[in-house]
Structures are given as C-alpha cells and as structure tokens.
C-alpha cells in the first residue's frame, strides 16, 4: 500500500505556527488588566481581600460560561439558565427548609436543571425549534414557575451556618474559598470533555455542520439533548453555590447573569458560528468579566463608567482575538458579512 508521493508544486509554507497556547490573547488581556488595576489602585490590588472576594463571586458565573462554551461549540445557545438558577435555587431552599436535608436539596437542584435541559433539548433536537427561540420561551416559563412556587419570597437558610454542605461548597480550604476549587474542577472536566472526549468531538462536528455530523454517523439528536441536560445540571449546581454563599435564596438570583456569562464565552474567543471553542478562553473571559466591576470601582473611576468600560474591553478583546488568534476567522467573518443575504 505504498505509493509515490503525490505530484505537487513547490512545498507550501507552513500553514500554522509551530506552537500555540490555547486562549493566549485573552490570557494576555487578563494580565494587562490586572497590571492596570495594580497601577491605578495598588492599595486594593496588592492585597489579598479583593482576590478573595473575586474567588467567591466569580465561580457561579464561571461554571455557567463553561457550560455555555459547550453549547455554543455545538452551534446552539441556551438563554434559559437564569431561570434554572431561580428554580433550582428554590428546590434547594425548599427541600432544605422543609425536609432538613440539604444534600437531597442539592440533588433536587441539579436534577431540576437536568429536567429543564431535557425539555429544552427535546424541543430543539427532536421538534427542531431553533434554540435561541425556544430557550427564551422556556426561560420565561421556568422563572415564572419559580416565582409562583416561592410566592416571590426569599428563603433564609441561616440554619446551614456551620453545616457540612456549607463547608464543602462555601467554606475555605487553605484560606481559599471552596467555590474556587469547584469552579476549577468543573473547568478541567469541561476542558477534557470538549477536547478529549467523544462527546465533545461530536459537539464540535455538530456545530461545524449538522449535515456532516449525520453523514459521519453521529446521533445529532441524542448528543444535543445530552448537551442541554449538562447545561441545565451545571446551572442547577451554580445556583446551589450562589444560595449557599448568601445562605439565602432570592427568586431573582439569576437575573443579571445572562449577559455576563455569555460575554465571558465570547470574550474568550469561542466562535459564535459553532464548531470551535476554547475552554481556557472562557475561563479567563469569566475572570475578566467578574473582575471588571469591582476593579473599575476600586480604581476610583465613577461607577457610572463601569458598563462603558466593560463594553470597551469586550469589543477590543473580541477584535484582538479575531486578528491575532485566527486570521482565517476574520476572512470568514468578511465572507459572511458580504455574502449573507
């Protein structure tokens, strides 16, 4: 089965750099930002407490953006996770309060998210409704359900102070908040799923082209349902982290996280077109988004400016990414902008 090498004109130039670190542009942005913060507010950013508070506030959003990375890699979107946070948080608080079993509450919260995921996945993959449309609908529905069930009231869970579950998910280890370890663990797991597992490869091919995915023998329905289940379960878990950190549940606790989590994914360099994604990028993207708020205020810029600066960082990170990391995507974008009718 040997053959002579194919006749070919002059050898082509190397088609890609010899070494490439995943998410490099965004890692650079991250450190530049830290440098700027230290420059403008050394008193705050050369001391531990601010980082400690980041490690508490960022993890839930980080976990959501990791799940979204997989969803977007498959060419789908899930906008219903804030509703999952509302409903799963309620399930956790309710089971904890009325049955005194917080671990069962954790299971209920994750299972609740997974069930919402099954429904989303079924509507998307089997019925064939575009995910951007259907998850807006289910988002309204489930946050409405959460409001009805909770009567719009918050639940305080002060009784969990000092409990095992609080220690595991909201305590500290070596002086570092437990949430940070959980988020890191999820990040590593999601990286391996996307880059090293059959499931992740299937998601990438589905995002690349559903037609190709079918031809090469991928069960695109089953894989997409699994994807939404995973996203729902992660949102349920993130909800428990939020509830435990505050030791109280608010029906509104998922609000405001939608854009942050999405921004983290796109800032990190994941393509909105599906078929490619970077978990490392989303990880640092979430850190940046999570730091900006407190960071800008700490540097003494008026709070009004926060969103302006977030917007600027977002746009420049995305443009930087396209230019540096993958010039091919810039061309793709060009083609899409010009060729699309």
């Amino acid at each position, binding site marked *: 089965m040997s053959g002579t090498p194919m006749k070919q004109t002059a050898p082509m130039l190397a088609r890609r750099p010899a070494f490439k670190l995943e998410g490099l542009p965004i890692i650079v942005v991250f450190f530049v930002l830290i440098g700027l913060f230290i420059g403008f507010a050394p008193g705050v950013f050369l001391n531990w407490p601010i980082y400690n508070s980041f490690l508490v506030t960022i993890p839930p959003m980080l976990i959501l953006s990791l799940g979204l990375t997989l969803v977007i890699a498959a060419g789908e979107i899930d906008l219903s996770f804030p509703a999952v946070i509302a409903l799963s948080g309620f399930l956790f608080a309710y089971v904890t309060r009325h049955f005194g079993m917080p671990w069962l509450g954790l299971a209920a919260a994750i299972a609740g998210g997974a069930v919402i995921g099954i429904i989303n996945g079924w509507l998307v993959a089997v019925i064939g409704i575009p995910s951007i449309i259907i998850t807006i609908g289910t988002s309204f529905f489930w946050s409405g359900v959460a409001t009805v069930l909770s009567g719009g009231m918050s639940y305080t869970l002060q009784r969990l102070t000092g409990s095992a579950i609080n220690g595991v998910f909201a305590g500290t280890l070596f002086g570092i908040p437990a949430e940070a370890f959980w988020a890191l663990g999820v990040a590593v797991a999601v990286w391996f799923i996307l880059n090293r597992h059959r499931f992740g490869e299937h998601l990438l091919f589905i995002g690349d082209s559903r037609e*190709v995915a079918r031809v*090469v023998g991928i069960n695109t329905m089953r894989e997409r349902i699994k994807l939404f289940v995973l996203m729902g379960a992660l949102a349920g878990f993130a909800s428990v982290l939020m509830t435990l950190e505050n030791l109280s549940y608010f029906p509104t606790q998922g609000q405001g996280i939608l854009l942050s989590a999405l921004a983290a994914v796109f800032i990190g360099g994941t393509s909105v077109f599906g078929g490619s994604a970077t978990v490392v990028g989303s990880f640092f993207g979430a850190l940046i988004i999570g730091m900006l708020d407190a960071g800008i205020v700490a540097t003494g810029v008026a709070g009004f400016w926060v969103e302006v600066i977030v917007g600027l960082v977002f746009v420049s990170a995305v443009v930087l990414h396209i230019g540096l990391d993958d010039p091919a995507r810039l061309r793709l974008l060009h083609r899409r902008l010009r060729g699309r009718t």
Partner: protein
Amino acid sequence: MSDRAYEHIVRAEKLCVSFGKVRALTDIDLAIGRNEIVGLIGDNGAGKSTLIKTLTGVIPPSSGRLFIRDQAVDWNNFSVRRAHDLRFETVYQEKSLGEKQPLWRNFFVGRQIVNRFGFINVREERRIANEILQRQLGFRGVGIDAESTVSKLSGGERQGIAIGRAMHFDADLIILDEPTTALAIKEVQKVLDFVRRIKESGRAAIYIEHNLAHVHALADRLVVLDRGRIVANIRPAEMDLEELTRFLIGLQQTKHAGVAA
C-alpha cells in the same frame, strides 16, 4: 486487511426500484468485481444516484436480488448502517468533512479510538492520521499534517482525505459521487490519483461522473444508464473517448425521438 476471497463485491440481479408509479430503475443486472473500478455514466435522471442509494441501503428496491461478496442480501435487514458494516463507504462531493476540525478528528469521528470511559486516545489518532496522510495518500512535504484543518485544504485534497479515510477503515467498495465536479484541473488530477490508489490497494470503486474524459481514463468498465436501464457495458480500451461521446449523443437522440413518438 481483509482477505478478499470473493468474486464480486456486489452483484445485482433484476433490480427494480419504483417511486409510486414512477419506475426509477428497471431490471438492473450489474456485477462489480472485487478490484474493479466501474464508471457509472448517464444523463441527469438516468438513475445513477438511485442505483447507488439502493446499493448502499438508502432506498429499498421494489424487486430484485442483491449479492454482496457473493452472499445474498436479506432486504429486510439491509440499511445504511448494514452497508457500512459490510464495508461500503460513500464519498460525497461535500458534506463528508468537518470544516473547522483537524484532519485527525475527521479521520476518526464516529469511530474514535477511545478508552472505556469514552476518552479519545489523541496521540494514537494523530499518529495513524499522519501515517494515512503520508503512506496512503502521499501527502509528503506539502505542509499538510494531522493537525491541519479541513478549511485550509483544496477541493481535491478534501476528496483525498475522504478517500483515505474510507481506505483506512478498510472499505472494500468505495462509492464516489461526482468527486471532481467544481474542481480546478490540477485538483481533478489529484482526485484521479487518489482513485488510482483505490485500485492499487486491491479495492473496488463505483465512480459516478459527468466528465467523460475523467471516467474514461480511469475506469476498468463503463456502465451506461439510460432511463433506468443499463444500456451498455463498455471497456474503455475498446472504445475511445470520441466514439463514446458519439454513442452517448446517439442515446440522447433516441430518447428525444421516443418522447416525440
């Protein structure tokens, strides 16, 4: 590599396919030897793709028999999946490769080398992919390796990758559906080289093509379909390109005469 101890990789007997009242294929008798490249030609609507789809389990026939490796096929148990298991692979014009994915993923997707938890052995897949690229396809010193993404390949190279994948997974029959359509001349040359490799490696191929010069140069035998029937079996050695062209134009004229009558 499988031992190919059979006479015909596929043999159809009196195969008929109807869509409602429309007869798409009538009494197809076709046998393809185990190391034969058969060119399938005919006008649009002659039944070329229907025939291919029947042989690969996409369309069930209304009557007739099929033998694969000289064994009769049970139609109730014949499907795309089954054809795949019987090592038939189809290389489509497009839609065979994931654009943004590296070649090693494209070679193995759907048939990954995994441990029992489903994690991919990336190192092994990369190694084998590079081997296929260099040994089987002859991509040497051309700047393409297992990490290259499909979007950076030319049209001809893409066909080569799809053919290489089929050969690696030991397909005994590779079906090429107009692989050179819309390719530049230099690219066509590459694809024809890849098809020759199928022959060299002892496999069979069915090659659907509009461009007569390409099939004529490559096929061991040309099967001409017209209005759902096989109207000629031609050995390229016995009929040159010009005669072939004239023959096909003649067919066209009888067709129009038939319609007029």
